[in-house]
Each structure stands twice: as C-alpha cells, then as structure tokens.
C-alpha cells in the first residue's frame, strides 16, 4: 500500500488536500501532515513515504529546500526515492521552472480536474517504478537531475560581491578578506567561516550569502557548504554517489552531496 506525506503550514489546506486526494485514491496511506519544512524532512527520512506533497512557502525550510535535503540525505539502501509534488499558491517563477523540468506541481486553490490528472500520473509512475535493487536507484538519479536544474533556475539574482567579512568576537571585529575563506558551513542560525588559520562564526544565512559570492570562485558542494574551488586538493568519489574533498591548508575533509557530485567529474 503506497504511503504519502503532506507538508503544508496551513492546517485547513493540509486536511483539504488529504481529503481530495483520498477520494481519488482510496488505498493511499497517510503519514501525519507536517506543518513546517524541518518536520517534513525528518518525517520523510524516518518514514520513507512513496509520495510527498511539498508546499513551497513554509516556515523553517521551503518546499524546495526540503526536496534538496531529501535528495542529499536519502539513504543509500534500496528504498526508492519518493515522488515529489510541489504545491504553491502563486509563484509564476516557480511554476515556470516546474513546467520546464516536468516536475509535478499543484497550484492552490487546487482545481479538481488538475488534481485528478496529477493523481493518475502519480499512480502510473508509481506502478512503473522498478523494484529490482540497481534500477531502484534510477529514480533517485532522475530526481537529483531534476532538482539540480530546478535549484539552478530558482537561484536568486546575483547581488554585489562581498569583499570582506566582518566577524565579531567579543568587542573585537575581525576583518576576513573573502579570498582567505577556505569554506563556509551553515550551522543553525550561524555560518562557520573557515580560513587556513582559524574559523569564525557570523550571523548570516548561507541563503543570503550565496548571491554575494562569485559562483566561479566559490562552489556550493552541499546545501550547507560552499568551498573556494582553488582550496580543493583532491576529490574522491564514494560508492554512495557522494564525493569527499580534501583541502589545501586544512586537515578537515568536506563532503560534496550527490546533487553537486557532477562538479567533480574528472577528465
């Protein structure tokens, strides 16, 4: 029996969608709805549903961020990656990107015909999903490719480039030239700024920082990690599809997720 998860911060909309889909698909099993992005991610990773309906605008993580995290953290066993359906009230930009990538999506308020078509499609895709171990991973690869394109299309416009970061430690403000940064790592509400000599914590989200970085110089290799390309010494592809990076001037290793593994394809 297939299972489904709804991530939606408005309780009425979550129960409405669940009722509408249930009518069209009586056999579907429902996990408890998640009211925020973080909860949705945890529930999906723990319960491994076959379908996820992800609202785009949610507190915590957006629907797209949940999808990205799912693709990066999805276990490497034979559990098939869930079929994703994005749900949005009004976002012309996102809808265009979904259309371009042939991603399933619903626009709120959801029209009955549109929902019926979506359910038919999901049923067909679910039935066609291979269950033999090596082929089961194909679903993940396909989802990763789609998401990569989707995230590329949804990237915010470039902002003026950042030259120097200011990191406060007590009463002292350290000025960190951007070219000295080996990598950035998201840590809850903070951002770890790691240079060859030391590291700082600054109050800035990676989401806000990214548009201010030159994408040719700083590569995002994980949803929470951005590394300066010239500081990467080696890249080793693991069997899981992830890539482990060693760095010049630092002993620690960082991991590039399967969403960004294509950056290190070698020659």
């Amino acid at each position, binding site marked *: 029996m297939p299972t489904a998860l709804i991530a939606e911060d408005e309780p009425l909309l979550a129960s409405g969608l669940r009722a509408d889909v249930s009518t069209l698909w009586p056999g579907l099993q429902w996990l408890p709805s998640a009211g925020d992005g973080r909860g949705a991610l945890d529930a999906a990773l723990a319960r491994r549903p076959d379908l996820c309906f992800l609202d785009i605008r949610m507190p915590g993580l957006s629907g797209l961020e949940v999808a990205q995290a799912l693709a990066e953290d999805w276990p490497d066993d034979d559990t098939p990656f869930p079929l994703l359906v994005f749900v949005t009230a009004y976002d012309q930009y996102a809808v265009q990107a979904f259309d371009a990538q042939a991603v399933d999506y619903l626009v*709120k308020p959801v029209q009955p015909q549109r929902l019926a078509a979506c359910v038919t499609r999901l049923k067909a895709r679910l039935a066609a999903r291979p269950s033999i171990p090596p082929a089961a991973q194909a679903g993940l690869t396909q989802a990763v490719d789609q998401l990569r394109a989707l995230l590329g299309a949804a990237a915010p416009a470039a902002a003026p480039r950042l030259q120097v970061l200011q990191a406060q430690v007590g009463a002292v403000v350290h000025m960190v030239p951007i070219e000295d940064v080996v990598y950035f790592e998201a840590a809850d509400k903070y951002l770890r700024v790691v240079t060859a000599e030391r590291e700082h914590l600054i109050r800035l989200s990676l989401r806000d920082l990214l548009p201010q970085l030159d994408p040719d110089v700083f590569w995002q290799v994980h949803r929470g990690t951005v590394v300066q390309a010239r500081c990467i010494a080696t890249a080793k592809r693991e069997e899981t599809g992830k890539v482990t990076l060693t760095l010049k001037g630092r002993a620690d290793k960082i991991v590039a997720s399967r969403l960004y593994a294509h950056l290190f394809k070698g020659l």
Partner: protein
Amino acid sequence: MADLPLPRTASPLPSIVVRAAINQFVCALVALLLWSISPHKGLPMMLGYSFIIGNCCWLFIDGSRALIGRWRWRRLGGIKEWPGMPWMAPVVVIGTALGYGVGSEIADALFVQQSPSLGSSTPALLISVIAASIFVYVYYARERLHAQRLAAEAAERQAAEMQLKLLQSQLEPHMLFNTLANLRVLIGVEPQRAQAMLDQLIAFLRTTLAATRVDHHPLRTEFDCVRDYLALMGVRMGPRLQVQLDLPADVRELPVPPMLLQPLVENAIKHGLEPLVAGGRIVVSAERRGDILRLAVRDDGVGLDATPTNGGTHFGLEQVQRRLVTLFGSAASLHVSAAPDGGTEAVLTLPLAASAS
C-alpha cells in the same frame, strides 16, 4: 507666428532642428518686411543680414537657455529645458543685444561693399529687435506651458502609480489565492465558518478598494481593515497566530490616510511570524500623545536580524515611508526597531493637526 507648431515630444525630429527651422522662417519674414520698407537695398542683401543676425541672436539666447536650464536641473531637479521666466528675461535682452552686435559685424565683413552698414539702419534694427522679442516670447511662453504640462502629467502619473502599487501590495496574489484555497476547503467541511470567512474577505476587499479612492478615513475604519485581514490570516495560520488590537475611544474617529497601518501589519506577519514554526503574537495599538497620533505594530517573531536584507523585502515599509513624506513632509515618521522582548516593532507617528485637517 503665434500658431507655430510646437516641436516637442510628438515631433519625430529633434527639437533643436525644428527650432532652427522656425528661426530661419522668422528670419526670412523679417527680411521680406524690411525689403518692403526699403526695396532699394536689394532682397539678397536683406536676407543675408537677416539670417546672420537672426541666427546669432538665436544662438546666444537658446544656448544660454540650454546651459542655464541644465545647470539648474542638475542642482535643483525640475525641468531641464526651461529655467524659468526670471532667468529668461535677462537672457533675451542680453542675447538679442549680443546677437545683434556680433551678427552685424559678421554681415558687414561679408558684404564689405556696403557702406554705411545695413545693420545700423534704424528700421532694420527696430524690426529685428521686435521680431526677436516676439519670437522668443511666443516660443518660450509655449515652452513654459509645455514644461508645466509635463510637470502636471508627471505628478498625475506618480499619483496613479502610487495608487496602483498600493492596490497591488494589498491584493497580493499569494495572500489572495491562499485565502481562496482555505475558503474552498471550508465550504466542504464547515459551511458556517466558510460564510464568515467569505464575509471577512469581502469586507477586506471593499475597504481596500475604497481606501485607494479617499484621502482620509477614520482610524476605526483602518482598524476594521486590519481586523479583517488578521481574521483571514487567523483562519489560515490557525493557533499559530494570536492577535491583540488596542483602539482607545478618544482616537477612534481621528481621520488618517488610508492603508498606512495595514502594510505594517502585513509586514509583521510575513517577515516576523510566518517564518516561525510556532508562530506568535501581533499587537496593533493606537495612542494619542499630545498633538501626535502614535500607531504601533509589534510582533514577537523572528526579529530584524533574521530578515534578509536583499530582495526588496521591505517594499511595504518603503511604500509607507514614501507616502508619509508626500503627505506630511518631516512632521510624520516611521521607525522600525527590535522589540524589547524579541521580535520587531514598527512605530508610526502622525501630526494630529495635519491628519485632522
């Protein structure tokens, strides 16, 4: 001459070309006039003098106008082409005198065989001066009229744009479609509540649309609109949103410009409470302090630090700020600061005398 076509925006030619052409036409007219008074001087000679003197005058007057206009525009703004009558009067007098003097010299040098100078003949001088004055007066009077019309059009366009932006920010599609989606669900499960929600939506839309057409409405109307909006958001956010509205009786009827409070409330929800998983509380209050009216919107949401600085998230606030300046100059203010217990507080102060007028 009074009906010369005005070479401006509608003309496909650059305005300087049209001005030059009109000037040649006037010069030819002056020459014909002078020739009809004293035909013995010969038409070609008359035309030569007229064109040279006329163009010199034009060069001085139009050149000074352009220079002064641009200089003033750069310093003060306004209209680049027209520096204003107090500047133009001396420009016309000095420009004509200079143009006539220089033009006569050039013409004398070209037509050496002529003695005494044609330029010094009294009727010629007189007619030239009169022609130049009329030309300048008519042309620049029209120019000024045009400048005024442009300014009026710009002001009108700005007002219309403001109205449109206000309407757009109020009827934000994301809010509207999410509300409709909730309504659609409620109709099926709780028709009574659906009806109440629809009534709130109708009231909100009606107040919003009305607000873009009036200059003032009583503060209680603004609060009604805020209440309707928060009720709609309450259905959507459920227990994540708690609301408190404080409207003392002594300020209920004070006239205020519409839709100043509303964007602040929306801002608090969108950037303060919606990003929080647990939601939070919003307090909207009004208070009279001497001769100012103090409106405050406080939330215990994510706070200012967490608000992204890029992407025009403060569009609503900017809009309010701009309207305050337009309506009250420096007498009103908007301050957004971190609230003492976390979250954000936006405080709007309006001068009572002005808002009550």
